[in-house]
Each structure stands twice: as structure tokens, then as C-alpha cells.
């Protein structure tokens, strides 16, 4: 008996199914939780630091921005497990890429620790932490693009295999 149900469905169906399920999950559950955590836990902490240091801290629904004295633009960090996680995650699940899924999840778990700590140091006037936050932003975008590429390539490879192209 074939117990591997996902193998029965073509890759196109699995991708559409995965994207739909995770989109609904994100919109209905994850996004509100991210906003709640940012507004009620993370932002109050950084705003309280703002009062003690010469740094201006502002927030959006899912992001903290820090602008110490002497900087003409803010640097900051977003709350992890946003769309930049769920899109490639959905593609990895559809293409059954276990290690890529674990790697991406681990990366976003680390993003929940390192950038907030860099933000804390940046408020405390450690200039190198500001550079660290910028490096983090670039890496974050790079990880997203490479993950999406990796997911789409796997989909194309599996689709070609199914069609014997």
C-alpha cells in the first residue's frame, strides 16, 4: 500500500496546495501573532531603552527602527517568520526538501535572537552593531532570494521529471 500520499499528486497540485494552506495560515494566525508580539513585548522593551539612551526608536507593525544621535537614517530589524520565511518554506514543503526546510527554520530562529541583540547594542551606542544590522538586512534578503530560487528550481526539476522533458 502506498502510504506516501503526497507522491500521488503532481508537483503543480502540491505547490498550489502548499502555497494556499500556508498563505491562509500566515494571514489568519502568524501575522497577527507577529504584530502582537512586536507591539506588546518587543517594542515596549526597546522604547523603554530609548528613554534612557540618546537613540530614537520607532516601530511599525512588524519592525523596530533605531536611530542614535549622529545617524541620518534608522537601522533596525524585522520580526522573523514573516512572508520572507513562509514563501520559500511553502515551496520546500511542496518539494519535500527536509534539510532546506530545517535550515531555513533554523535561520529564522537565529534571526529572533541576533538582530534584536544587535539592536540593543546599537541603542547603547555601539556603532559596529549598526553595521551588523545592515549586514543582517542584506543577508536576510539574500537568504530569501536564494531560498525561493532553490524552491522554484526543485519544482521545475520535478515537473520536468514528471513530464519526461
Amino acid at each position, binding site marked *: 500500500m502506498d502510504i506516501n500520499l503526497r507522491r500521488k499528486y503532481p508537483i503543480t497540485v502540491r505547490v498550489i496546495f502548499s502555497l494556499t494552506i500556508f498563505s491562509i495560515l500566515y494571514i489568519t494566525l502568524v501575522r497577527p501573532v507577529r504584530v502582537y508580539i512586536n507591539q506588546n513585548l518587543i517594542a515596549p522593551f526597546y522604547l523603554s531603552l530609548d528613554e534612557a539612551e540618546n537613540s530614537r526608536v520607532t516601530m511599525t507593525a512588524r519592525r523596530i527602527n533605531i536611530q542614535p544621535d549622529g545617524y541620518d537614517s534608522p537601522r533596525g530589524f524585522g520580526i522573523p517568520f514573516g512572508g520572507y520565511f513562509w514563501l520559500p518554506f511553502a515551496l520546500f514543503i511542496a518539494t519535500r526538501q527536509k534539510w532546506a526546510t530545517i535550515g531555513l527554520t533554523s535561520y529564522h530562529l537565529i534571526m529572533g535572537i541576533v538582530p534584536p541583540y544587535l539592536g540593543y547594542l546599537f541603542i547603547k551606542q555601539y556603532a559596529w552593531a549598526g*553595521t551588523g544590522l545592515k*549586514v543582517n538586512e542584506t543577508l536576510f534578503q539574500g537568504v530569501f*532570494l*536564494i531560498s*525561493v*530560487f532553490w524552491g522554484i*528550481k*526543485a519544482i*521545475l*526539476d520535478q515537473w520536468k521529471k514528471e513530464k519526461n522533458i
Partner: protein
Amino acid sequence: MMGFLVKAGFFYIAWQLIYDLIIFPDGRLDQILAVSVAALAKIGLSAFGWQINVLDRLLVIDGYRGVEVLNGCNALTLMALYSGFIISFQGPGQKRIVYLLGGIGIIFFLNVIRIMAFSLATVYFQPHWDTFHEFSSFIFFYPIILGIWYQWTLTCEENTQSPSGLSLA
């Protein structure tokens, strides 16, 4: 695969450090990119009959809000992200240069079109301008970048006559 990721990671870290410590304080590269994109966007829109004014980085269609090409909007970071992949993924040297220069040129050209679209957005859907701006990379850049990257991996596979390390499916 791990080798590729490590190389790409180091490239992106090195790029951001160079940008933050040298290119950004110097300002000339950001300025050249922003001003040239604004000037070309003006030429593009004028060709379609729009009355548009340009002042340094600022584009204004007569009677509507202006669009300023800030450093974050000059596509330099995306050029670096694109290049990091091409450089880190093992492939033939000469074609790598073609892909690097060609890809950077395409991203620059796409950014001109994007800035033109931002200006037109002030006319047709100003209330949604911020949303359009936020997701513009997904419309103008990402599909093309991913497409060129895919073509690059195929080129590399043809040259090595073996599947690339990215095929983990």
C-alpha cells in the same frame, strides 16, 4: 551546496561592509546611479508624452506628487545580491563575466522602468503608492533575477556535464 552558501554568505557580508564603510560615506556611486535612473526615467516618460520635470534625484509629473530616488531605491543592493549568486556558483569564467555585466545592466534598466512606474502611480493610484512601492521588487526585479540565475545554473550544468549541487529534490 554548503560551499556555495558559505561563499555567497561571505560575499554578501563583505559587500555590505565595503558599502557601509567606503561606498556609502563616499556617496558618489549612489548619487550617479540615482541621478542617471531619474534622468532615464524622465526620457522614458517624455517619450510617452508626459510632462515631467527632474531635479537631481527628484521626478515630478506636472500637478502630481514627486518621486525621489533614494539610496535604497537605486538597486545597488540588488545588483550585489544578484552578483553574489553568479560569483559563488561554480561556472565558466568568461560566461560569468557576461552574466555579471548583463545582469547588472538588466537590473539597472528594470529600475528605470520601476521608477517610471512609481511616477505613473502618483497619477493613477496615489492612495496605494506605498503598497506598490513595498512590493515593487516582486514585480520588477525578483522574477527576472531568479530567471537569470536559473539560466546560469543550466549553463554551469552544461559545462560540467553533471547536475548542479542545487538539485536536491
